[in-house]
């Protein structure tokens, strides 16, 4: 009898905790802030291999971009994301793209579709899937595209910039301020990032 009570109690606690965890998942307001240390992850790349930030021994930091195939804003920024990697990977700041959407709800973002898209565009950076959807809530990513610029330090990868790639989604040639480039350039020059956060419309990440 005592044992039954104990089992039920354990089950009760487990349920309570899982209900709480679910609630947590639905509210992603509490992501990383500027200056926080971003946790490393291990996510599957389109080539089937697992990728972690710690794999990049020589990197000075990372341009982590939550993006996907199905969001028109993300698609409009694809060429600019590729350009960022081409410009900064060799300088120590590679692009790490992460697809955060629930692929049951958005089949156009599943691994096969990601592979096809990456191949047709010629992505030169890892395009990872957040299959368990546990990484994007930690970052506090809410939409695609959503950039988190990290700088490697002794204590881990420190968040230095959060937000948009630039200030004109429509026309790359009409951009006035390249937020991410300015931020990376500042870090490369050993300076502080001036504009640490920007806002832009994006597609809500599908939980």
């Amino acid at each position, binding site marked *: 009898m005592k044992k*039954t*009570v104990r089992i*039920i*109690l354990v*089950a*009760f606690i487990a*349920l*309570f905790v*899982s*209900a709480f965890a*679910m609630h947590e998942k639905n509210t992603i307001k509490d992501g990383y802030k500027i200056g926080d240390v971003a946790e490393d992850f291990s996510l599957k790349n389109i080539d089937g291999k697992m990728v972690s930030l710690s794999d990049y021994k020589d990197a000075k930091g990372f341009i982590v971009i939550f993006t996907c195939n199905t*969001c*028109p804003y993300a698609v409009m920024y694809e060429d600019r994301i590729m350009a960022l990697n081409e410009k900064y990977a060799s300088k120590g700041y590679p692009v790490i793209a992460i697809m955060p959407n*629930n692929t*049951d*709800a958005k089949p156009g973002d599943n691994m096969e579709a990601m592979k096809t898209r990456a191949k047709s565009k010629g992505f030169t950076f890892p395009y990872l899937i957040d299959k368990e959807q546990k990484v994007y809530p930690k970052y506090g990513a*809410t*939409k695609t595209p959503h950039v988190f610029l990290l700088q490697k330090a002794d204590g881990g990868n420190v968040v230095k910039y959060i*937000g*948009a790639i630039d*200030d*004109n*989604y*429509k*026309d790359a040639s*009409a951009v*006035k301020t390249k*937020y991410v480039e300015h931020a990376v350039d500042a870090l490369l020059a050993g300076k502080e990032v001036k504009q640490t956060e*920007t*806002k*832009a*419309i*994006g*597609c*809500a*990440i*599908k*939980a």
Partner: protein
Amino acid sequence: MKLKLLIVAILIITGCKHEKKRVADNHDMTKHEVNDKMNSSDVVLEVYNYNGFEKFLNKKDDKIYVINFWATWCAPCVKELPYFEKLNSQYRDKNVEVILVSLDFPHLYESKLKPFIKKRKLKSKVIALDDVDMNSWIPKVNKDWSGSIPATIIYKNDSKKFFEKSFTYEGLEAEVKHFLN
């Protein structure tokens, strides 16, 4: 006795969880693609940059305004549009006005947005906001807005509430009722 209580409590909690899951699933199922080409040249669309649009957020005429930011490419936005339409029709005579602010891409106004407005027979006022410098105006709409849509503002004179989330009709109605009382 205690044991019974525990079992009941567990049943209630699991019941709630299932309910929640089901709602979530329903939510995921709805996807509307509107590609129909039809004559929509008679749909008149007001297009604003942020400066022009700002007046819709700052009216002080004792009316309750429900401002919904959406786009035809945003599936959860399209899913909740009928609730805003219903609200508009049911509360229009109670001093409530719904304004649907489209963030569609300007080059798709003719081929996507206008046909959508026509096909769905949208009765609420639809306007388009076209302003690429989003970092300058998103924080002016609300400082907590990360920029994902759907997003909604409900306001009356100086009292405002902002929501960066999807609504059910019941949820939307409940929020509007706060302003009515």
